[in-house]
């Protein structure tokens, strides 16, 4: 029993990584109605920017704040420059765009900062959290940040005019334009916010997986899995999905013989497909009530 509890706790701790990334995934899905495969690379790049600022002597929180702003603006710039011109193009064109973006960011990061792994500091330290060996203060801090982010997003979408306009533009662009919403800018704003959230995820993940240009590959797939499990339309679902995926992954690794680290990734993919087949809207996705 103790093994079980411990594994669940450890799963929640890793789950926080996925939850945070899943929030960024949901954010972009809300804005553009599909997934951004380059999201992990954008987060990685942001994390390098933070690292660089700290190398230049800036304190952690200063670098954190500037990175947020950099990422927000960067997300908007990427949308305006690359994806706005593709607005009317078919989905496959977008996918090609995402892959190109992925490759470009990855190699620019590699050229600038090379591929050796780097230490990235944690603002929360890495001592045992409340005396527990399984969860560190960093992991606890990460869970806390994810939850705070979730609450902020909830307030933004539920209680602010911009949040309402973004939801409207995402669900019914034509009606949104007919109430005077500039839907094109709402998409750009979605990119900016997703990039900023992704940068938080990157900066929190980096102390765990170490900073290098390929650090986000696996994490993004788990982030997708978490978002799909939770339902792509629901930030709360994404966070719960993140924790579930973390716990699931740990339990499977512990109790099913033969599932080592190599098999964990296929398990995430299997999870995505299973949920999509059984419950296409995810566990917490909105079912839309329609009356004709």
């Amino acid at each position: 029993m103790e093994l079980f509890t411990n594994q669940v706790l450890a799963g929640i701790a890793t789950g926080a990584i996925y939850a945070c990334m899943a929030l960024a995934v949901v954010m972009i899905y809300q804005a553009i109605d599909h997934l951004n495969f380059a999201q992990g690379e954008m987060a990685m790049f942001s994390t390098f920017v933070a690292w660089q600022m700290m190398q230049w002597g800036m304190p952690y929180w200063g670098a954190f704040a500037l990175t947020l702003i950099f990422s927000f603006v960067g997300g908007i710039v990427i949308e305006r420059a690359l994806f706005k011109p593709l607005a009317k193009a078919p989905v496959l064109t977008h996918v090609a765009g995402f892959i190109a973006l992925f490759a470009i960011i990855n190699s620019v990061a590699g050229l600038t900062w090379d591929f050796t792994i780097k230490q990235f500091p944690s603002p929360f330290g890495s001592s045992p959290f409340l005396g527990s060996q399984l969860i560190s203060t960093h992991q606890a801090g990460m869970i806390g940040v994810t939850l705070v982010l979730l609450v902020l997003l909830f307030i933004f979408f539920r209680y602010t005019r911009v949040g309402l306009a973004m939801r409207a533009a995402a669900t019914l662009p034509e009606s949104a334009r007919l109430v005077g919403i500039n839907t094109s800018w709402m998409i750009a704003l979605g990119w900016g916010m997703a990039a900023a959230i992704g940068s938080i995820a990157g900066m929190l993940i980096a102390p765990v997986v170490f900073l290098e240009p390929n650090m986000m590959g696996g994490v993004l797939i788990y982030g997708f899995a978490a978002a799909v499990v939770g339902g792509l339309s629901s930030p709360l679902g994404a966070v719960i999905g993140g924790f579930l995926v973390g716990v699931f992954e740990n339990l499977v690794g512990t109790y099913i013989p033969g599932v080592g680290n190599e098999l964990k990734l296929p398990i995430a993919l299997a999870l995505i497909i299973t949920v999509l087949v059984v419950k296409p809207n995810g566990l917490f996705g909105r079912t839309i009530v329609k009356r004709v």
Partner: protein
Amino acid sequence: MTALLHVKDLRAYYGQVQALHGLEFDLQEGSLTTLLGANGAGKTTTLRSICNMIRSTGSIEFEGKKLDNKSTESIVRLGIAHVPQGRGTFTTMTVEENLQLGAISRKDIKAIGDDIERMYAHFPVLKQRHTQQAGTLSGGEQQMLAVARALMLRPRLMLLDEPSFGLAPLIVRDLFKILGKINREDKVSILVVEQNAQLALELADKAYVIETGRIVMSGTADEIANNEDVRKSYLGY
């Protein structure tokens, strides 16, 4: 009287297919004008052209300003509210959120709350359901919500695309009564597109008849209602 809306030589296209062939009409300030026509005549296309939701040529002037080349959202921001065919309800949002969206481009944020209350006075059923998901409303309730959402813009001109569509006759009468009241009391000019010619002509002061993308007849609502051809083709007696 000056024309609030002045449409000249309007041609609209769906791809290669031309749907409007040089349409011309005026809408006077304060008027409630109706555009009548059979299925496929081009009524919806006309309204969509005014809001630049479809490729068109010709000239459309609103309060003397040209609308060509303006985006849909900036045309709306000039004070043109459009209730589209199919109503355009944000079905996953609450009734109240739909009303707030109607006012989303307004700068006078403090006055929005009062306006929502005014809408509830016009349409009490919306107040009862203000926290309900809009998709769960009945067809008639959704139409009222669509009209209320449009009014939340505090528009100078309201475009309505077949507001009677799918509604029971009694509900249509109610709705049209409210439209008349809004036109008189709130000084909102209205352009209403209808297949239900009889009711539309009772309500309107001015009428145009459109056939295959051209205006074929115009006059006061009374003149049109008494026209022999109109009676045969649109009123059925």
